[in-house]
Each structure stands twice: as structure tokens, then as C-alpha cells.
């Protein structure tokens, strides 16, 4: 087995899904099975490549041009963490969609768009250059606009239209920010921008650009008050698409880029950290409270996503190594358990045809795999020990107390209790109540869907072990936090 230089892998993260997306269109447009096989193989390859890149870091100069002139791709511990989350969740979702997409027609288009979205997300994570970040961001979000509208039912079209308009507005804000940054610093490379900002300090135009970036990326990450598109877009999309959107897209193109720009490029100060903390608090509380009263499973989970993203941004906004580690650990955890919960909701919808909690019940006997994995996912997100969600929320609360923000810590604990409340509501009403008459004749869930859900549940359980010191420090979370707290990029 030849040893592959990890540096040559970096452009392949983007090139392989992009090429396969087009190849699926070219050869597999009428043959659905070939499209499915190609997609699953590509995602397996991507997941293996991201596992291989753990512990490595480096800069790749596209075209061989040296840094100020050319385009860079940058791999470090934070990027590795995100790549693992994106690609492994993508693998599970692609396995799931082999069976779930039987409900839809024109399936090979789905796989093309899915691969395009993966290429875009990988590109955002690996980008070392502000404009390339914007271009891959656009690729990923345009693919997701089309995927949300995939089934062309009433609610999908309406949700996708709202999503497109708000998404285009936020991309426009981001582009204005990029224009301002280029005008002031004269370069687009992230490391060079960081160096120039460190020399010259942040005057008003740069603060304006930073503010525009915060607004634009908060739209993408669905922080309150920029969250209006998410409760419509995520429930209306087909279940695998909801899992990808809620599980990885809002984090890879929202929270990750926000953290990257705030900590590594612009150099964050106390006021801006306070802004992030307050945004996080607002999202946590608003998302949690709005989730309790929902009757639709996926809409409840969508509001829950807003709440959990608030936790992450609160952790990041604390600015201390413990807080940042907690925020990043919660990011990876949420990627796994939220996608798992959305896949469960999709399995329930596939089997019963409804998403309304009032019409469901007693599914723990009829859909055993779904019920078991949903229990794992719910306990993780609610923060019950020893599951992974407990550890990440504990770290965030401890970091709040350590920095002296007792009110934030109390709010975090209260929102955790609210999370427990609505998760228990879903578990009780959907799985443990009495089976209604209409649902007597259900079959079990199809094998691929069960396999995907088991894969993600195992990932959740494996992540709960990542809190132990022997695993945490050299492994991902500690290294990622070190990247962030190291401050401005060196060359």
C-alpha cells in the first residue's frame, strides 16, 4: 500500500465530489442504481480521506503559485474536525437516502446535487482565501436551495423560496464585506489579511466589514434574529436533506466561518466577544422556548437546532480555551445527533405518512431500530450522562462559570432542562404512547435506513468517550481549540 502524501489529498476533497456529481449526470441519468452506487462509493472515499488527514496540517498552493499571488488551501486541526463531521455524516445520509428517496422521482438529480453540496462544504472548510470561501459557500448553498425544493410539493416550494431570498440577501452582505476587506487590505489570502490587520489595527471600514460578515454568517448559521428561514426550510425538505442541512450545513458554512474569521483573521476583542455571547444566549433561549409548543416533529427539531447553535456560539463567545473547546465539541456532537434525529423523523414519516405528533404513538414496537437510535439521540441532545451532549454542555457551563458569567451559565442550564422537556415530549408521543388504530399495519423500516441510523448512533456513543483526557488532548477538540486561541494566523 503506497503512502499517500496528505498534501495531495487537499484539492481532491473538492475535486472528487465535483467530478462525480457531473459524472452521475453524464452516465447515470436514467440508471438510478448506478447513481446510488457512485454516490455511496464517493462518500466512503471522502470519509476515509478525512480520517486519514487527522493530525496533519499544511498549506497547499494551487497551481504552484507562491502565497501572495496564488490560491491556498489550508488544512489545520479545526479544518480536520469539520471535515470528519461533514464527511461521515454525509456518508450516513447517503446510505439512508438510497431507501428514503423511493418516495421521489428524478432521483439521479438528487445524487448530483448532494455531491455538489458536499464539494461546496469541503471547499469552505479547506479554503485559505476569502473569495474562494465565498465561491464554495455559494456552491453549497445553491445546491441546498435546489435540494430543499426537491419534491415540488406546496410547502417545499414555499420554504425554498423563502430560503433562497434570505440566503441571497446574506450572500450579498458577505460579498460587500469581501469587497471592503479587499479594498482596505489589498489582498484576499486569509493569512495576509490577518497580518495586515494586526499591523494597522481595525479602523472603521474594517469594523464595518466585520459587522457585515457577522450579519451574513449569522444568517447562514441561523442565529436569532436571523433565523426566520430555518423553521420553514428544514422541515419541508426531504429527510436526508434536512439531516444534512441541520446537521452540517449551518455549521460548516455558518459557525465554522464565523469562528475562523473572528478568531484567526480579524482578531476578536472583548466587545465583539460580548456580541457573540448575546447572540448565542438569544438563540438558545428563543429556539428552546419555541420548540416546546410544536406539533410537527421536524419543526420541533428545527427550532432545537437554532437553540443548539446558540450553545455553540455562546461557547465560542467566551473566548477562553475551555469555552472554545466546549463550543467545538458541541458542534461535532450536534452534527451527529441532530442528523440522527432528523433521519429518525424521516423514517417515521416514511413508515406512517405523517409528521404530526398527535397522530403518532406506540412506534417502539413497530420501528425498533428507529426507536432505539432515537432514544440515543434524544438522550445525547438533552444532556443526560454519560452521553456526549452532557459532556459538551457541561464544559460550556463550566467555562461560563470560570469566566464569571453566572447569568449565562444559569440560562444554559435552564435551556438544557427545556431541551430535555421537548425531547421527552417527542419520545413519549411518538414512540411510547399507545399505538393508534390507523397505524396498526406498519412494516419495519428498510435496511439501508436502519444501517445509516445505527452508524450515526454508534458515532454519538463513540463521541461520548472523546471527553476523556487521553483521547481529547492529542485528538481533535483540544487541537482545534488551540488553533483558535492561537490568535491571528502566522504565515
Amino acid at each position, binding site marked *: 500500500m503506497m503512502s499517500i502524501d496528505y498534501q495531495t489529498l487537499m484539492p481532491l476533497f473538492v475535486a472528487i465530489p465535483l467530478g462525480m456529481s457531473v459524472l452521475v449526470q453524464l452516465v447515470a441519468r436514467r440508471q438510478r442504481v448506478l447513481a446510488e452506487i457512485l454516490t455511496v462509493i464517493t462518500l466512503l472515499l471522502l470519509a476515509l480521506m478525512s480520517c486519514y488527514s487527522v493530525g496533519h496540517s499544511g498549506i497547499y498552493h494551487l497551481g504552484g503559485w507562491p502565497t501572495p499571488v496564488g490560491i491556498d488551501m489550508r488544512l489545520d486541526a479545526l479544518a480536520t474536525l469539520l471535515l470528519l463531521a461533514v464527511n461521515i455524516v454525509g456518508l450516513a445520509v447517503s446510505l439512508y437516502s438510497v431507501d428514503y428517496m423511493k418516495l421521489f422521482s428524478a432521483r439521479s438529480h438528487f445524487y448530483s446535487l448532494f455531491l455538489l453540496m458536499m464539494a461546496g462544504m469541503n471547499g469552505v472548510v479547506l479554503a485559505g482565501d476569502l473569495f474562494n470561501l465565498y465561491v464554495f459557500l455559494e456552491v453549497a448553498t445553491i445546491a441546498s*436551495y435546489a435540494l430543499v425544493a426537491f419534491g415540488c410539493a406546496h410547502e417545499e416550494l414555499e420554504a425554498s423560496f423563502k430560503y433562497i431570498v434570505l440566503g441571497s440577501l446574506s450572500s450579498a452582505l458577505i460579498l460587500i464585506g469581501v469587497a471592503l476587506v479587499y479594498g482596505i487590505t489589498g489582498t484576499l489570502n486569509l493569512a495576509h489579511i490577518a497580518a495586515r490587520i494586526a499591523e494597522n489595527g481595525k479602523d472603521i471600514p474594517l469594523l464595518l466589514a466585520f459587522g457585515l460578515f457577522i450579519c451574513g454568517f449569522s444568517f447562514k448559521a441561523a442565529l436569532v434574529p436571523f433565523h426566520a428561514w430555518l423553521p420553514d426550510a428544514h422541515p419541508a425538505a426531504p429527510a436526508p436533506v434536512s439531516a444534512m442541512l441541520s446537521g452540517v450545513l449551518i455549521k460548516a458554512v455558518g459557525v465554522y466561518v464565523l469562528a475562523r474569521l473572528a478568531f484567526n483573521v480579524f482578531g476578536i476583542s472583548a466587545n465583539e466577544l460580548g456580541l457573540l455571547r448575546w447572540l448565542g444566549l438569544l438563540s438558545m433561549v428563543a429556539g428552546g422556548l419555541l420548540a416546546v409548543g410544536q406539533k410537527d416533529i421536524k419543526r420541533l427539531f428545527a427550532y432545537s437546532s437554532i437553540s443548539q447553535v446558540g450553545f455553540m456560539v455562546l461557547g465560542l463567545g467566551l473566548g477562553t480555551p475551555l469555552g472554545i473547546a466546549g463550543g467545538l465539541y458541541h458542534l461535532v456532537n450536534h452534527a451527529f445527533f441532530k442528523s440522527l434525529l432528523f433521519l429518525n423523523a424521516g423514517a417515521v414519516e416514511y413508515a406512517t405518512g405523517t409528521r404530526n405528533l398527535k397522530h403518532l404513538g406506540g412506534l417502539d414496537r413497530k420501528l425498533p431500530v428507529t426507536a432505539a437510535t432515537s432514544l440515543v439521540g434524544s438522550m445525547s441532545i438533552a444532556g443526560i450522562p454519560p452521553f456526549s451532549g452532557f459532556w459538551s454542555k457541561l464544559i460550556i457551563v463550566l467555562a461560563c462559570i470560570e469566566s464569571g458569567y453566572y447569568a449565562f451559565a444559569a440560562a444554559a442550564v435552564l435551556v438544557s432542562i427545556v431541551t430535555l422537556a421537548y425531547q421527552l415530549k417527542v419520545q413519549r408521543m411518538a414512540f411510547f404512547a399507545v399505538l393508534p388504530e390507523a397505524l396498526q399495519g406498519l412494516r419495519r423500516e428498510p435496511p439501508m435506513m436502519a444501517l445509516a441510523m445505527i452508524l450515526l448512533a454508534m458515532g454519538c456513543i463513540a463521541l461520548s468517550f472523546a471527553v476523556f483526557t487521553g483521547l481529547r488532548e492529542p485528538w481533535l477538540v483540544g487541537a482545534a481549540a488551540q488553533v483558535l486561541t492561537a490568535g491571528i494566523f502566522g504565515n
Partner: protein
Amino acid sequence: MSTSRKLRSEGMGMTVNTVTRWLKGPILLFGIYLVLYGHITPGGGFGGGVVIASAFILITLASGERAAQQLFSKGVASRLDSTGLLIFLALGWLGTAWAGAYFYSNFIDTPEDALFTLLSGGIMPIANLALGLKVGSALFLVFTLLTAFQIAGHEVDDQQVDDQPGTDEHQAEDES
């Protein structure tokens, strides 16, 4: 309803048809010129591709949809579109595989006296060609599929509507 359907199948009147018959050649040629000389003069893949697509759109508007589809059908456009992107990615990958350097490195050398001529600039002309192919066929495909909807009367066109990549035309078609 019937006038727009007639317009789409038969095109516009005799004046438009005659002028188009003269103009479509030069417009297409201009688009190809923009793509080919894209590494020396302003233009390149994007602009040239748009002009090429506009030549075919002009033919569609003037002579009707059937005449344009006989020249450049939806299936052919979709395949050319995908091929263009695959050529572009292959160019990048050849930079590592063949020349042993980075992705998208310029592995074709240009001798000093051949600068600013047509066959110079390394991989850039090939990249421009791939881009022109992709943008031209993609734009024409988008135009054809968007005009295939029959809005007044909520009917979809009775022609067999084909797939297309990239944008979201999820028409309910049969699967194999």
C-alpha cells in the same frame, strides 16, 4: 394560449427570420473568437460562452423551438455541459499526475518568442475552451427548459421534456 404555443413552434415573422439567418453565423463565430483568444484579449470562457448561447437563443426565438432543437438538442447540451466540467477538472488533475507538481499547475511551457500569440499561455486556452463549452450549453439548456413551461392554462408542454443538470427542474418524469 394558442398564440404563445404557435410562437414557440413556428417562431416569428419573415423579417426576423431573414435577419437571423444572416446573423446567427457571425454571432456564433464571435463567441468562438472570444473563447479562443481569451488568454490574450478580454473575454474568455464566461463571456464567450454567453455569446454562443445567445446565438442559439436567437435561433429559438426566431425560428421556433423545433428548429433550434434539431441543431442543438437538450440531450446534447446536457452531455456537453458535463463534459466541459470534466475536462476542466482533468486539466487540474493532470497537473499533479503527469507533471508531478500541484493541481492546476501550468504544465505546458511556452517558448519565449511565442508569448501573446494564439498558442501560448499553457493550459489556459484549454481551460477557456472547457469553460466556453460548459457555460454556452448550460445557459442554452436553462433557457430551453424555462420556456418549456406553459404558464397560461397551467399546462406543461406536450413535448417530451428531458432532464437537465444544475438547476432544479424536477419535472415528474418516469424513472427506469
